[in-house]
């Protein structure tokens, strides 16, 4: 297997007296989908925010392509090729697809103080990249609010890929979606992985993880419970790890194994 693009070693994060992460190690290789599973409050959000430069770890080191790094802001992480697609903050619904796609990195033309956005280029690239992800837009000026939830996630993913992401962190991309849209997003993940990008797929839905994951890491109460490779672990075992074992076992028997 190839060397990891990003390696998180023994990451700890404290918020005052609260230990949100108590020594988490995690790595992503190019072209793999590494699923990070955990129940609510397990520390998934804190962990990916650390990875994407929103939080600074209290202890531990981050290594990107063999170099130790410290991110001061999400901008630094983006410059290092780590892009994050947040669940509900991916897009601004009032703005057009093009304006969202290029937000923060608008292509410009003209000189000095008279620079304007190069809308011809921006629209063309947006249409092309969306088509590559399997979405044919009616027009690039249409507002993101007119797209479905899955399509919005796809715009965000296409944007990250276009801007040269090496690692793509997806924060619960499927949790608010219907069956068909989930399938579309999972297909997009597969497409992006084949392009050689490493994917961190955060979810608490084991079935979605099993559908595309190459490796699985389970977080529970701020700690990792180990990493498993595809084929070595069953969905039931993952589910069990996520809930920390006992309680769910009791619940599950009373619900007839449907959770």
């Amino acid at each position, binding site marked *: 297997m190839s060397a990891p693009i990003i390696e998180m070693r023994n990451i700890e994060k404290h918020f005052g007296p609260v230990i949100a992460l108590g020594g988490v190690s995690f790595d992503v290789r190019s072209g793999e989908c590494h699923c990070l599973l955990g129940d609510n409050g397990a520390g998934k959000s804190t962990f990916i925010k650390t990875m994407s430069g929103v939080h600074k770890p209290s202890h531990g080191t981050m290594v990107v392509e063999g170099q130790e790094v410290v991110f001061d802001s999400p901008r630094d992480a983006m410059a290092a090729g780590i892009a994050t697609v947040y669940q509900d903050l991916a897009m601004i619904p009032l703005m057009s697809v093009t304006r969202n796609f290029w937000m923060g990195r608008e292509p410009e033309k003209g000189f000095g103080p008279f620079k304007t956005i190069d809308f011809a280029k921006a629209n063309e690239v947006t249409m092309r990249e969306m088509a590559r992800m399997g979405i044919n837009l009616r027009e690039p000026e249409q507002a993101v609010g*007119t797209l479905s939830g899955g399509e919005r996630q796809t715009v965000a993913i296409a944007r990250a890929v276009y801007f040269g992401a090496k690692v793509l962190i997806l924060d619960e991309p499927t949790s608010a979606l219907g069956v068909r849209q989930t399938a579309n997003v999972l297909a997009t993940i597969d497409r992006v992985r084949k392009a050689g990008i490493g994917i961190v797929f955060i979810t608490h839905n084991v079935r979605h993880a099993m559908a595309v994951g190459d490796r699985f890491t389970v977080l529970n109460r701020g700690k990792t419970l180990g990493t498993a490779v595809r084929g070595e672990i069953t969905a039931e075992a993952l589910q069990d790890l996520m809930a920390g074992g006992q309680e769910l076992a009791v619940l599950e028997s009373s619900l007839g194994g449907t959770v």
Partner: protein
Amino acid sequence: MTDERLMPVSSLRRAMIRPELGAICGVILVFAFFLMVAGDSGMFAPAGFQNWLVVSAQFAIIAVGACLLMIAGEFDLSVGSMIGFAGVIAAILTVQWGLPAWLAILVTFAVCIGLGAINGLLVIRTGLPSFIVTLAFLYILRGLTIWLSILTTRQTIIGGVREAAEGDWIAALFGGVIFKGFFQWLGDIGLLTTFTRGARAGQPVVEGVPMLIVWAIGLIIFGHWLLARTRFGNWIFASGGDAQAARYVGVPVNRVKVLMFMFTAFCATVFAMCQVMEFGSAAADRGLLKEFEAIICVVIGGALLTGGYGSVIGAALGALIFGVVQQGLFFAGAESSLFRVFLGTILILAVIMNTYIRRLITGER
């Protein structure tokens, strides 16, 4: 993956459905109305034209600032007080302290833009709604204006500014008219009515284009270009649309918001300087209620009160509606208190229509 349930969109519909549509309809309605009730009152003669254009331009100057700020997701309720404050500061500096007019004007701009920055930084640092922070400044600035004016001159009106600013080229940017020669020529060839009697016999009834209108047009063009065409404009939309999502992709949201507060203060100061040069005096009660009038123009123009959506052209059309209604009722000989009834009605109708249009465009439910 095109959805077969989406109806094809005709190009006519696409051209029609835009944020300014409500304001465009409003303008047509208002003009049709006043052409009917006041068509022969001189409202649409050259002097009448100038009358309501100047009033509309006043609204437009502050509406452009308020529009960009509102799209960036913030309010400024201190605009009216800032107008009074800027005028009095400039007047005290020239008349009382004897500073040359150009220096006084530059200092006034610096002080007011600085106050705009304080407004913005307070909003950003405290995380309080700008509604509250600028409401506080509405009172603070108005109080300071009256106090400073009485402290230095023992009255609330400071005159003599025009004399002090005589021949000053920066002061001339805010007062007087341009294209005098062109309008004289229009008068000479008979395209423009001229005075037939009195000291100004032979001169055209409209002397030229007032600087107020030049500023309004300049600010509208600049504001529209900035918002619709530039990278910074995209950041304005993003900051108001969803500040957190914008931050995550690296948009400097705080900087954008503070700059927009400063720009709003700049617009208020331009308004104040034009008014001071026109009247030749400053008064502590100038600019009362202007903050709300600016917001009304912007909202009639299709902007969303909570930010992230709107257009400068719309705000300018809102200002035009406002000016035409205010002066039109005067030309129509209507009771002047009816102005507010009319305005309130237009506001409600415009907002209902704008909400409907916005839902069509953005897919909001």
